[in-house]
């Protein structure tokens, strides 16, 4: 399977790295020689210097023999033109493009049906805003993901020292929980991801990921002592594309929303387009401004400027002023491991979410959706079990699920089953699997979904 990636920026780099690790043939095109060098120095992929919108370059890259082309440069226009040219050079190649301008939002379908026939238009801004919105709806949680059209929730919470589950072994959990049975999918401890077994135990400071049916979410959170009053007031720092989208989304809901932006021209534009939100012109890390606007009394702060240092600073600052919840936008992946150490719990990354959606579309076969969790050490996938697959028709215990992977939930028609060793998967069940990065190829093998890339 051959994949051509146009744009060797952060997104292009990380997709290339994922795909290369999964043994795909990857070719990266970029104009910038330095960016390409970084790719070729670190990854086992081919590189080509030139413009991704040039038919000559695309021919040279062997577009005709490629199944997938990803246009993920920083420029919407460059991506669209690259797809248009690619559509002429090689109509059979599937094309995916990253397009972020909100004006294109309603045209994604049109792009698919008409030239340039882009299979999927990816706008990470939409995903990020959805993620932030999900986090705000579950204030006690650190990370929230959705599967099976929102019927299954994947939630991460921190265990603090006072938690009743401190030092409890997983196998003893059902006794303590009573009726509800969340499935503990993963534990992050000291930057290490653990797919837990029965004899693993919880420790204070763990970030615990569990999977639960949506309607049991509240109860489950209550058991863990993480049920909190809903958020009502939100401060957004940074009025760029994502900040605007979030504010516009919150306008339709019972939130009071303030938004701080440094650039007066952008403020003007925001004030013109937003009707309820209060637009403030100033620096998000300016203590006077924050005090003047009574930030300490607000429920949540979302820092979304392009400058992650400002975001981190503003989050720490507002946290100290008494804000209950801070969501911080981080772009550099190298910062992720530091966040917990400096006390920032909730992080969003448009790039990570772009990578997630692209991977999900690349694996389109029978994998319905996928999401990376903190630090990209593991992935959660939703897939359909096929008749031919090794996982079907025997008890899970004897399937040989690799160590480091876990079948977390099964959806059979309308029922959600939290599986045990005795559970048997039937054809056409939808299964949710948590897997560490390095065992993903093995998981694909047992699913036999394997490599049903298109």
């Amino acid at each position, binding site marked *: 399977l051959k994949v051509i990636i146009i744009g060797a920026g952060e997104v292009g780099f990380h997709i290339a790295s994922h795909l290369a690790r999964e043994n795909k043939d990857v070719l990266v095109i970029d104009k910038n020689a330095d960016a390409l060098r970084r790719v070729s120095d670190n990854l086992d992929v081919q590189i080509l210097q030139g413009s991704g919108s040039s038919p000559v370059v695309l021919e040279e890259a062997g577009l005709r023999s490629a199944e997938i082309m990803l246009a993920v440069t920083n420029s919407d226009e460059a991506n669209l033109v690259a797809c248009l040219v690619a559509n002429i050079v090689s109509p059979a190649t599937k094309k995916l493009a990253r397009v972020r301008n909100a004006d294109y939002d309603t045209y994604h379908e049109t792009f698919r049906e008409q030239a340039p026939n882009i299979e999927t238009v990816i706008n990470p801004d939409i995903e990020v805003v959805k993620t932030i919105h999900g986090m705000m709806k579950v204030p006690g949680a650190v990370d929230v993901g959705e599967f099976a059209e929102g019927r299954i929730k994947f939630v991460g919470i921190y265990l603090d020292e006072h938690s009743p589950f401190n030092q409890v072994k997983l196998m003893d959990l059902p006794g303590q929980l009573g009726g509800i049975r969340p499935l503990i999918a993963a534990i992050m401890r000291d930057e290490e991801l653990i797919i837990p077994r029965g004899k693993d135990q919880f420790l204070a400071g763990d970030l615990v990921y569990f999977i639960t049916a949506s309607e049991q979410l509240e109860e489950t959170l209550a058991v863990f002592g993480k049920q909190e009053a809903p958020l009502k007031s939100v401060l957004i720092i940074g009025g760029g594309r994502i900040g605007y989208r979030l504010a516009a989304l919150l306008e339709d809901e019972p939130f009071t929303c303030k938004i701080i932006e440094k650039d007066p021209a952008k403020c003007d534009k*925001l*004030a013109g387009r937003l*009707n309820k939100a209060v*637009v403030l*012109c100033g620096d998000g890390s300016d203590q006077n*401004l924050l005090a*003047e606007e009574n930030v300490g009394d607000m429920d949540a702060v979302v820092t979304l400027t392009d400058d992650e240092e400002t975001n981190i600073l503003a989050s720490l600052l507002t946290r100290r002023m008494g804000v209950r919840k801070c969501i911080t936008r981080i772009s550099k992946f190298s910062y992720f491991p530091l966040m917990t150490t400096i006390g920032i719990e909730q992080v969003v990354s448009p790039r990570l979410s772009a990578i997630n959606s692209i991977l999900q579309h690349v694996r389109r076969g029978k994998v319905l959706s996928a999401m990376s969790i903190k630090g990209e050490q593991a992935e959660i996938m939703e897939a359909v079990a096929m008749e031919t697959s090794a996982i079907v028709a025997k008890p899970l215990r004897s399937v040989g699920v690799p160590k480091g992977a876990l079948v977390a939930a099964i959806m059979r028609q309308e029922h959600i089953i939290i599986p045990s060793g005795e559970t048997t998967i039937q054809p056409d069940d939808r299964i949710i699997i948590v897997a560490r990065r390095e065992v993903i190829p093995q998981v694909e093998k047992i699913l036999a979904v394997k490599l049903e890339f298109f």
Partner: protein
Amino acid sequence: MHWRHVFKVVGVLTITLAFTMVIPLLVGLFYRDMSVRPFLMAIAATLAGGIALYLAGRVDRSAFVSQREGMAIVALGWVVAGFFGALPFYFEGEFPTFVDALFESVSGFTTTGSSVLTNIEAVSKGLLLWRSLIQWLGGMGIIVLGIAILPFLGVGGMQLYKAEVPTPVPDKLQPRIRDTAMILWKVYALITVAQVIALWAGGMSLYDAVNHAMTTLPTGGFSTKNASVAQFDSLYFDLVISFFMILAGINFSLHYQLLRGQTLAFWRDSECRFFLGAVLVLTLVVSFDIWRSVYATMGEALRYGLFQVVSIVTTTGYATADYEQWPAMSQLILLLCMFLGASAGSTGGGMKCLRIMLCFKFCYKELFSLIHPRAVTHVKIAGKTVPDDVLRSVLGFLALYMGLFGFCTVLLAGLGVDMVTAFGAVAATLGNIGPGFGMVGPVENFAQIPYLGKWLLIWCMLLGRLEIYTLIIFLVPEFYRK
């Protein structure tokens, strides 16, 4: 400044006016009344005047119209039209002095509806029709009419249009200004015809129906009866006229949208909602106030309350009741209605709902920035930001309006008029309403105002119709500087 070009355009407009006088002349001939001779004289004089003006400016070949020239054409056009329009009144001899005839004519063109006639029914039918016709012409605007029918005004038409229809946010319905003007006039004529039919079907004579329709749609208010609409004493006529007054008080581009099939046009426009809401609330308040204190039943209170509120707030000025006998609160509400006025882009006068809305929103914005000193806020209408220059001109307009109101009131009182009358007369003429308070109340007229006072009120009417800026600009020395 190309004065010759201004003269040329005004000359053509005057010649057009002479032709419109043929209509009342024919009516006069039909009824064989005494208006035939005055009209023949007036037509001759107007034609001569128009041709003279045209010849004075003939040598100028420039087609470009600057904003300044646009204002000069419109201002001069209105003054000249008022002058020549007064000639039939003067020649018939019903008016003691020329200033009375001029007052009546300007009151007509500006759609004010204030009259100096004590016995309207004694006037010949041809002349009464002329009186209604000039209101109808003035309502949509004589310059807009000129743009629609005179092709050579197409160039620079936008400057003229802006000077005559100075809404805060002008809407151009068509790419070409000429087509826009044509559409507005067609819509205007169509609704007028609808009202003629509605009144005629209710049993009014065709002559009265035509006259009343022609003075309802421009929110003018001249009636052919001494006691105005009260003379008919018919619930049906009250309701029909109220309905058409409300229509006339709504932005005509909304009527156009409605006729094009956008059924929700009224509801989607925030100014229209404000206007209709104001009419509803004020009617209910006034009706409650006059219920029992003036009228025995709620039905009667509603009937007269509605008509009076609508008549004043749309700046029409018909009367079915003497509101000076009403409680103080209702009278004050009606006085405030004189300032509120109808919608921008309608034929009504006053300050206009849109400006009042913008003013309220601006005040709220100021309060808001006291609470959030660093907030960036915009004044918005229907989710769209109102540009700062529009806002500034609106606030400037409101300040000028109130300033002029105060100044003219003092002047009028200085001429020996009592306080209530001075207030009422200036408010009624500046807002192009018609009846005021005191000596110029709904059952009286402006005949008692002193000679110089009539001159003053003539200017008030013109200032109100042209929304101040177009006329007052002539007082600014900078205007004449080369």
